[in-house]
């Protein structure tokens, strides 16, 4: 065992590739949180009164709430909200008319991340096009392909722009899935969020390209609070991608986001995340605290919402992408790979709330723990009275590497309708030395062997990701776990 642990230590050192920071001129709020700061943010963004009211209501509610520390299988110090900067934005030199006027440092930042904000470049490529909304330190920098999408009536823009340009849609849907008072971190976000993405797909339109938001935390000492709102009208379809990275810093940085999805009758929304926030170093110093509320509602009959996530980063992950299955025959899916290494902690899973008749949900969760990390699956399946013939199938697998990590499963099942069929399967396994030796004997190095075995283990989930994203996720898994034999 001693030898195994050494091997793990040797090989676990997959380095975080995105640990640099950029020197960009910033416009920041004073440190700390108060009603003045909430007003400051709203004013900075030249928001209408109703938006300020929404923020203040959430803030006042938040003051009365307690940090949810008792139930999650997570251990971290109390967060000092007076030591966080709640608003940081790259300083615009002037009103931006074209990409040429964007701070070249900013463009370089995104180029370094492999994200092109130049549409022309992408057009000439053979690969499928992706429209990107780039968000740095909570502020949307640039949304690509806006005009192309507008031809189909699709709205894809920063949340701030949407508040100004589409107030009716925002008023109607914002907070309709995750109320401003929903939970501690959702209330915090609702009070101080600075930007995010908004997407509306009109009736019967199939979005012709993948939409994507790329989040980057850059500034020191700041929290990132963005919100995403996706509305798919009747019969619409959209596939949405989200990517995240952050610089390596010794301190912990807070990320508390909200994602709301609304699917009307016969609409389908597919939301994929590759979360790679800085996880902290080997000793658990630094890293992002990721407290995120993601929820979708299948409002209309025959609608579908599908969450796919590959979680490799963050010091702490607290995240339960959920689906409320209100419409009859609606479908909710949750596919997840959560990797924890070193001192990382993850408490993640989903909630499937069945309200409509014949609603179906599928949960496939693959946890991988290495180092001294702790990885928990927490999931709720609730079948309400009247949700006749609702069905759920859950599969929760845990993979352990080494003998110093932990894997935990907390499934909650509440059934109020007798006609429901709910299945839950769970397995725990270790990467076998036998498997690694078998690969070695065929000439495959231990590092590559782990990559193969882990990717094989996650295949069901990775298959759900759009092509470009799947390749990225596979590489990320290999880097995060290089050679952690158990």
């Amino acid at each position, binding site marked *: 065992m001693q030898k195994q642990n050494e091997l793990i230590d040797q090989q676990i050192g997959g380095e975080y590739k995105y640990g640099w920071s950029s020197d960009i001129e910033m416009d920041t709020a004073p440190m700390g949180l108060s009603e003045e700061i909430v007003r400051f943010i709203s004013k900075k963004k030249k928001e209408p009164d109703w938006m300020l009211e929404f923020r203040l209501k959430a803030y006042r509610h938040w003051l009365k709430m307690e940090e949810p520390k008792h139930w999650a299988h997570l251990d971290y110090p109390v967060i000092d909200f007076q030591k966080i900067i709640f608003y940081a934005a790259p300083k615009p030199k002037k009103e931006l008319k074209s990409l040429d006027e964007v701070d070249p440092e900013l463009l370089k930042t995104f180029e370094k991340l492999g994200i092109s904000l130049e549409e022309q470049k992408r057009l000439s490529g053979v690969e499928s096009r992706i429209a990107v909304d780039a968000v740095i330190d909570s502020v949307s920098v640039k949304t690509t392909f806006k005009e192309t999408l507008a031809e189909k009536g699709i709205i894809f823009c920063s949340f701030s722009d949407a508040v100004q340009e589409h107030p009716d849609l925002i008023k109607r849907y914002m907070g309709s899935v995750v109320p401003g008072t929903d939970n501690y971190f959702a209330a915090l976000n609702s009070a101080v969020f600075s930007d995010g993405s908004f997407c509306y797909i009109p009736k019967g339109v199939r979005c012709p390209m993948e939409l994507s938001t790329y989040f980057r935390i850059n500034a020191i000492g700041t929290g990132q609070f963005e919100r995403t709102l996706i509305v798919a009208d009747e019969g619409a379809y959209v596939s949405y991608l989200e990517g995240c990275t952050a610089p390596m810093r010794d301190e912990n940085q807070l990320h508390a986001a909200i994602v709301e999805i609304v699917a009307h009758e016969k609409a389908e929304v597919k939301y994929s995340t590759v979360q790679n926030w800085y996880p902290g170093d080997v000793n658990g110093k630094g890293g992002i605290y990721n407290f995120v509320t993601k929820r979708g509602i299948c409002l209309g009959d025959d609608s579908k919402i599908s969450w796919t996530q590959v979680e490799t980063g963050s010091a702490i992950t607290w995240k339960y992408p959920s689906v409320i299955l209100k419409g009859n025959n609606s479908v909710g899916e949750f596919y997840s790979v959560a990797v924890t290494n070193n001192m990382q902690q993850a408490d993640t899973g989903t909630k499937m709330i069945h309200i409509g008749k014949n609603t179906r949900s599928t949960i496939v969760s693959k946890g991988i723990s290495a180092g001294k990390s702790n990885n928990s699956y927490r999931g709720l399946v609730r079948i309400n009275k009247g949700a006749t013939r609702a069905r759920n199938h859950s599969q929760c697998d845990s993979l352990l590497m080494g003998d110093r990590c932990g894997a935990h499963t907390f499934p909650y099942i509440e059934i109020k309708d007798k006609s429901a069929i709910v299945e839950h399967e769970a397995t725990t396994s270790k990467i076998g030395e036998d498997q690694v030796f078998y690969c070695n004997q065929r000439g495959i190095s*231990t590092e590559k062997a782990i990559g193969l075995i882990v990717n094989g283990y996650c295949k069901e989930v990775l298959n759900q990701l759009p092509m470009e994203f799947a390749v990225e996720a596979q590489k990320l898994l290999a880097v995060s776990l290089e050679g952690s034999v158990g």
Partner: protein
Amino acid sequence: MLSIKNLKAGIDGKEILKGINLEIGAGEVHAIMGPNGSGKSTLSSVLAGRTDYEVTGGEVLFNGKNLLELNPEERAREGLFLAFQYPVEIPGVSTINFLKTAIAEIREYKGLPALEAKDFLKMVKEKQALVELKGSLASRAVNEGFSGGEKKRNEIFQMAMLEPTLAILDETDSGLDIDALRVVANGVNKLRSSTRSFVVITHYQRLLDYIVPDFVHVLFEGRIVKSGDKELAMELEKKGYGELTR
């Protein structure tokens, strides 16, 4: 090709191999027989480099290199192949992908350019035919849900793909019915060449009807107690191990 001198090895402090001496020349087929617990599988594990076993003495030269100093993947890349008695399942990883990775690593080690996709696929087709392996099996996950016979055939298929200079078959006949045995043996026979040697480990003479060895060795209590040609195997079959090891 392979020269084993006074090899001693054990597990958890218990000595199992107590001084093995064996010379294998290029293109030769050596059968190693012996009762349960005589050390047959330990010998194959030690040669392949399984770390559970501790080598306590002796030396092994493989094509002039000190085999015991190489790690398992280097031994494989040098041309040593072990057909496992119990092939391992790797869920979610297709045999094709598995072999592609293995061949890429071996070629890189040897300083050869990467194999083109179309050449690789052509090779897969050819070698599959050799062991009468259905095309669909190679696209399924490695050994997952395979029958005993399919697993063994898959081992020989992999051997054909990796083109080793020394192949060790560890009780490849165990758990095979007579038809499967014939298919596997045919595959092996087609792979025999003047530059490829085989070590065939088995309990039974039966396999040696199909894969005819040049030499037969009897392993007993960690030592080779008798060597001969294929007649020795016949003799063993008739008299059992008792007389020989007395």
